[in-house]
């Protein structure tokens, strides 16, 4: 429907823009910024409560970003379950009859849960953390769902909604508590950083796993106009 000339002109335009962008990156690469941020980060790492710098940035130095990012996730999950329609949780086409797969899964699921727990725990001093662990948790859930295991806790209802915001709520309360104690918003009291970061991460892992899984499970499967609600 669109004419070939339009295609060609768009193509040329994008190539030109890409070239300009490439030139900009090239020029910036030749220019030394002399940033002192990495050094600053190293100097303050000890005070952050965790040894892994990425976790320190995410949950201490720039924790407000992370807080808002969880909010973004919660929004997506909310819109997702607001569109969820009744029978999505008992989709018969999803149930596998393969006995071998089911048997395999019996071993696989605990293993994956263990891996998620490891990732969470590792986050304090080496790569890993709440997001990776949460994603692992969600992946486990996806596998369970694909083999037709019941996931009743994902039924839209109060319980699901509490699960979605659990991590976020704890994060927020810690932020408020530190502000009331006279520190800045979201500042951890000295000495408690590590404990607080770990407990926030644990609940975040659960919530993130649940959010991602809810988004997968609640994807609309039919055109029913009234969504189901667990309780009214």
């Amino acid at each position: 429907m669109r004419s070939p000339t339009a295609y060609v002109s768009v193509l040329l335009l994008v190539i030109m823009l890409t070239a300009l962008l490439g030139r900009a990156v090239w020029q910036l690469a030749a220019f030394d910024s002399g940033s002192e941020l990495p050094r600053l980060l190293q100097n303050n790492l000890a005070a952050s409560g965790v040894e892994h710098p990425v976790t320190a940035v995410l949950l201490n130095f720039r924790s407000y970003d992370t807080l808002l990012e969880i909010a973004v996730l919660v929004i997506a999950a909310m819109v997702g379950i607001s569109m969820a329609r009744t029978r999505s949780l008992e989709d018969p086409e999803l149930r596998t009859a393969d006995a071998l797969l089911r048997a395999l899964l019996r071993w696989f699921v605990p293993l994956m849960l263990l891996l998620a727990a490891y990732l969470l725990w590792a986050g304090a001093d080496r790569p890993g953390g709440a997001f990776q662990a949460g994603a692992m948790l969600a992946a486990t859930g996806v596998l369970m769902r694909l083999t037709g295991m019941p996931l009743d806790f994902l039924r839209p209802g109060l319980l699901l909604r509490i699960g979605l915001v659990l991590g976020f709520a704890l994060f927020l309360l810690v932020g408020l508590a530190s502000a009331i104690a006279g520190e800045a918003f979201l500042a951890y009291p000295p000495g408690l950083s590590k404990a607080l970061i770990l407990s926030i991460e644990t609940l975040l892992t659960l919530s993130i796993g649940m959010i991602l899984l809810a988004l997968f499970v609640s994807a609309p499967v039919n055109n029913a106009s009234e969504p189901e609600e667990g309780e009214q």
Partner: protein
Amino acid sequence: MIEWLLDLLLALALVSTAAAALLSRDLFRAVVVFIAFGLLMAVCWVRLQAPDLALAEAAIGAGLTGVLLLDAVSHFRRGNSHGLESQAEEEN
């Protein structure tokens, strides 16, 4: 030198999978290629000494995004094959 060549190869692979993911006629294949792209990105992050990102990219970028998209694609197919009218019946 050999490392640099590997990087170059990886960069080329990224670009070509990206192009293939968009150009592929079949949506299902496009998504599969996209998942491959996500995995290559994870390797990229390893090369950039960002293991956290590698983990996250493999789990979230490739894994979960891929599952979501694959699920959607298979759904479109089912919707197309046995039609929307059958679903209208289910409503009653």
